[in-house]
């Protein structure tokens, strides 16, 4: 456990940190290590995945983003950061699975606040669920459009990019056709989707909307889960839509609301990613520290070697800086309903880069053992590397943030 710099951490914060750390250490890390070697198609149905998710739900960790007025834990921003960081310290894959499961329930609170019917369908049963028999997903990425989705609707060329998943207006709702890509987190196991789709193809990305969808609806099928290099405890896969009817009531963002909705969603997601990968960086640092104390080379423990000390200090510096920026951004972005996307992106990019750099340096300290499946560090490194791509390739996110900075010119 790291040295806590925040001076006014309450007993409640200390308690939740200790509770989630224990869960991450005793349940998530070992389960993730085993699932790392399981074929992707089998992860979602694997007893270890199911049991770890059930335990997370029993601890109510699946509702940390859902406001308490809707039955969720509604944690304050600092507690939210602590929980996300500790979960990912145990396993980035599980942490993302638990966090993203909340998106349909949270999306209903964010964009359909007054819609009792949707709250009753997508939020209430989810927050009351304790056995992980209800799982949500965030379905945005597509075969032809990954980072495209991160473009601001007012960016040049946005009108020329038409997403794969398109909805056509019909009586009483929308008829949806197309597919989401293999990178939809939780898709193989999800019951509900916070679904991004195009509702006016003539406007390209400016014609997008968001719907809440029951994935047992007629016409929906799942594709094969892809084998991937890391975060293998996180089930990811395709979703196909073949003449799927979505009622008008389920369209929670039309094209007018969409710029706000995408900003809010990306801000929340990127800020969460920054907290998660601070946890991954911390995990890599902790592994390196442990090994450097244990491993004797040249007649003394590695930690007694000046070059190792210098490297450990560099890693320590990155972890602390990641925690500083991710907490700072979360304290702001989770205290307002109009968050700062450029700060969220800055935090996501910094923290995921830091997690890769720290785990890379940790492998150097481990030497040959760091390349072996015997160690956790090689899995942590692969988990970290995924994050520079997921939720937006860091370079594409930088473009979006740069566009936002340009828009701020003269203010």
């Amino acid at each position, binding site marked *: 456990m790291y040295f806590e710099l925040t001076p006014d951490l309450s007993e409640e914060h200390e308690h939740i940190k200790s509770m989630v750390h224990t869960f991450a250490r005793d349940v998530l890390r070992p389960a993730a290590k085993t699932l790392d070697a399981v074929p992707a198609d089998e992860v979602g149905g694997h007893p270890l995945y199911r049991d770890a998710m059930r335990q997370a739900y029993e601890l109510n960790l699946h509702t940390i*983003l*859902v*406001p*308490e*007025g*809707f039955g*969720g834990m*509604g*944690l*304050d*921003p600092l507690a939210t950061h602590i929980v996300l960081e500790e979960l990912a310290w145990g396993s980035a894959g599980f942490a993302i699975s638990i966090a993203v499961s909340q998106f349909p329930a949270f999306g209903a*609170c*964010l*964009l*359909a*606040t*007054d819609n009792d019917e949707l709250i009753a369908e997508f939020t209430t049963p989810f927050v009351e669920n304790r056995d992980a028999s209800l799982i949500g997903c965030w379905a945005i990425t597509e075969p032809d459009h990954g980072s495209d989705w991160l473009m601001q609707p007012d960016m040049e060329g946005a009108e020329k990019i038409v997403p794969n998943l398109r909805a056509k207006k019909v009586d009483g709702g929308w008829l949806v056709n197309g597919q989401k890509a293999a990178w939809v987190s939780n898709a193989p196991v999800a019951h509900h989707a916070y679904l991004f789709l195009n509702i006016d193809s003539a406007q390209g990305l400016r014609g997008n909307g968001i719907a809440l969808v029951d994935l047992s609806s007629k016409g929906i099928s799942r594709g094969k889960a892809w084998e991937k290099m890391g975060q293998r405890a996180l089930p990811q896969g395709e979703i196909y839509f073949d003449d799927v009817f979505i009622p008008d009531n389920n369209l929670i*963002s039309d094209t*007018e*609301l969409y*710029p*706000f*909705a995408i900003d809010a969603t990306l801000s929340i997601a990127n800020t969460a990613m920054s907290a998660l990968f601070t946890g991954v960086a911390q995990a890599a640092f902790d592994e390196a520290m442990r090994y450097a104390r244990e491993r004797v080379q040249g007649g003394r423990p590695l930690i007694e070697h000046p070059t190792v000390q210098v490297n450990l200090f560099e890693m320590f510096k990155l972890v602390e800086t990641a925690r500083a920026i991710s907490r700072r951004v979360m304290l702001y972005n*989770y*205290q*307002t*309903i*109009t968050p700062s996307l450029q700060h969220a992106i800055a935090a996501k990019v910094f923290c995921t880069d830091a997690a890769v750099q720290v785990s890379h340096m940790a492998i150097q300290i481990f030497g040959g053992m760091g390349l072996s499946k015997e160690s956790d560090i090689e899995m942590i490194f692969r988990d970290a590397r995924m994050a520079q791509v997921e939720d937006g390739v860091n370079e594409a996110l930088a473009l979006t943030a740069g566009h936002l900075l340009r828009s701020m010119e003269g203010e």
Partner: protein
Amino acid sequence: MSKYESTEQLYAVLGSTWRKAFEQEDIARKFKSLGIYVHFIVHEPEGELWLMPDATVHEGAWDGTPDKPEVRMEMKADIAHKFWMDKLNVPMATAKGDIKAKGPVSKIFSLLPVIKPAKKYYPEIAKANGVSLEV
């Protein structure tokens, strides 16, 4: 032109609506469980309204120091009127900046289901105080 002619009229309507709401045990209990101060800042006409954590109402500026989280909501009186008449799309109003909200997001969203059953008291109180019910 604003639906409200004066700050006094604003306080009479919004203050009375909240007091009436807090007379309902269920609403008061749910509000108290949030453990927050809610600070409404209204423009055209100008006014302030505080909801205290013990489910009491204070009209005008309050010079105390909140010892619990503060949710601050700022809007024009006409937007507040539209909201209480149940004719406002809250996410859209937020997106357009018609409502500016600060404070823990979870608390902000949690307020809305608490307020919802109180909306039914507004039309009668507004009408009794000379506010047109048109939106």
